[in-house]
């Protein structure tokens, strides 16, 4: 805190007056408020989790303690998010390439805006879309996969008749994080120095070779960072999963096309919280704390990757 008062005394031009002090003080106060809010989020979650953590295992839902309650949920969360990232990253990169290097310039502005609209749609609407549009259309594919790819653990079946499976949930999540992945990739791709691209073209490279040699290496860390930010978003996504996924408590399976799936932490909270009381609430908050920690780690790592690249490009 001591370092922050230095710039004001050092500021050469401004005369210190009451208005100055009030304004600077309230601006700094707002900044500190953010620190307090974040500390509050972590603090309240920890405090409210403690009753669940110290309770005897029989009292916790599931009857085997908090860890056993959260573990399958954490597995489901990571599985759904992993599917989303695996699907969305290549698609997002392709969209970013299309908008920066393939589409006509005037068109690409409009199309970029359209892609951004995907990010604006509320998650509950994605849930509606997932149940009513996507899931029924995937059922034939699941039946086909069970028949022909059943030897893989992912497609062991029995195929869900409603299509409300882990794979459907992952695909809905993929659509939801697509705008983030593509927006960040787009930003780095458009920052590739013209000289790099022209050098490749001057050597006789085709457009794809130019992209492979100059754009993709330059944008690699941006793509990785974007994918991880998307992962962070997918981990915390709630309503779309709560609506789409048909769950059975405590399941742990890699089978992506059946109707018995592990739930995710966020979806489980949304489904259970309104009807919970007492120690159940504390257990749900404990699971929320686990989710908070996981997303925090992923986001910090993603920011570190994206910002490292930003420093690098600033030097150019």
């Amino acid at each position, binding site marked *: 805190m001591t*370092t922050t008062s230095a710039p004001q005394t050092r500021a050469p031009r401004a005369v210190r007056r009451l208005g100055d002090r009030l304004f600077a003080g309230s601006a700094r106060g707002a900044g500190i408020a953010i620190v307090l809010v974040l500390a509050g989020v972590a603090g309240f979650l920890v405090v409210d989790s403690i009753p669940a953590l110290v309770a005897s295992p029989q009292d916790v839902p599931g009857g085997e303690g908090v860890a056993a309650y959260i573990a399958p949920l954490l597995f489901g969360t990571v599985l759904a998010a992993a599917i989303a990232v695996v699907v969305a990253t290549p698609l997002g990169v392709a969209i970013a390439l299309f908008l920066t290097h393939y589409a006509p310039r005037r068109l690409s502005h409009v199309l970029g805006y359209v892609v951004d609209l995907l990010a604006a749609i509320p998650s509950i609407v994605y849930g509606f879309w997932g149940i009513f549009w996507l899931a029924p259309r995937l059922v034939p594919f699941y039946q086909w996969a069970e028949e022909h790819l059943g030897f893989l653990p992912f497609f062991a079946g029995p195929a869900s008749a409603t299509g409300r499976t882990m794979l459907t949930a992952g695909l809905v999540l993929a659509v939801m994080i697509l705008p983030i992945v593509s927006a960040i990739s787009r930003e780095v791709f458009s920052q590739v120095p013209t000289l790099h691209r022209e050098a490749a073209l001057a050597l006789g490279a085709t457009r794809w070779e130019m992209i492979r040699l100059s754009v993709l290496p330059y944008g690699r860390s941006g793509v990785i960072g974007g994918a991880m930010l998307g992962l962070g978003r997918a981990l915390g996504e709630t309503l779309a999963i709560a609506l789409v996924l048909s769950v059975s408590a405590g399941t742990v399976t890699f089978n992506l096309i059946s109707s018995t799936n592990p739930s995710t932490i966020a979806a489980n909270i949304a489904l259970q919280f309104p009807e919970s009381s007492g120690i159940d609430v504390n257990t749900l908050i404990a699971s929320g704390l686990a989710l908070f920690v996981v997303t925090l780690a992923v986001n910090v790592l993603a920011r570190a990757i994206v910002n490292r690249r930003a420093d690098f490009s600033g030097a150019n």
Partner: protein
Amino acid sequence: MSQLTTTPPGMTSPSPGSVRAARRLPRWTTAAVVAGALAVVLLLGALTHLHVAVSVLLTAVLATVALYALSRAVEGRRAATDRLVTCAVVGAFGLAMLPLVSLVYEVVSRGIARLDGEFFNSSMVGIVGEGGGAYHAIFGTLIITGLTALISVPIGLLTAVYLVEYGTGRLKRAITFLVDVMTGIPSIVAGLFAYALFAIFFGPGVRLGIAGAVALSVLMIPVVVRSAEEVLKLVPNELREASYALGVPKWRTIVKVVLPTAVAGLGTGVTLAVARVIGETAPLLVTVGITNATNLNPFDGRMATLPVFAYYQLTQPGVPPQYAIDRAWTAALVLIAIVMALNLVARLISRFFAPTTGR
């Protein structure tokens, strides 16, 4: 750029003499191949009744393969690969547009049925089955979102001012980092935080509109800070220096020079931030709950909000379910319309209030 210097040998054409006389396919080839593929698929469809989606997919695959083969035969391996990638990139973009188009179509076509006066004029008090509306939910959403903006905009703007105009050293770095962290907080966790906070004062099981506004603020503040910070950074330093040179104190410089210059960007950022939180469901589900009656007091008990209304209409429709499901879709349609309108307003603000930069 070591890759660049090492690649030229690999990029030479198969025979040195053919470089200048490289054969190219005429420009209309792509269109012709796609038309041909479409014709083949249509012919096939006439025989076997293909689904529309399958036909489109088949056309795309067929055209890509044909184009690749043709290009490979005439133009060589490298140009063929280039065309293959172009097809893949364009195809991926088309695939990504599919969810957006189908989603908007689905919501509009299913939601239009109940988009009538009653939907906007009545609440759900005493409604079983047909009729009913989202009057209470629409007003609940407006009130809670308004409160959220009331909390978030001052804190967000002042923080951005601090980061750009005042902040240095460790506190600035800490706040920048924490704002980044805050952007990534899952919305349900923000809801749990607000619930835990208000449960201290009002006891467990509390449901209050203001708690929802606090939860949404946790999500909205970082968005406001991020966008405002970017915009304030764009204000040229010459303006600040000119103001200082006239003897204007720093705070008046910020209020009278910096903020008015950036007002278009700030307005756009705030509008987009509102659009981001207005559709949030999860935090309201755990903090505000749902009610059938109209409650416009955010400090007294449960309120209805549009996203939560849509959620419960769909998941607990009652018997017969169709009426509630129709209401859910109409609520989704109204929600999307609000979000799109806010996005449009944001665009208009940035267009009409932008400072004239011409010199």
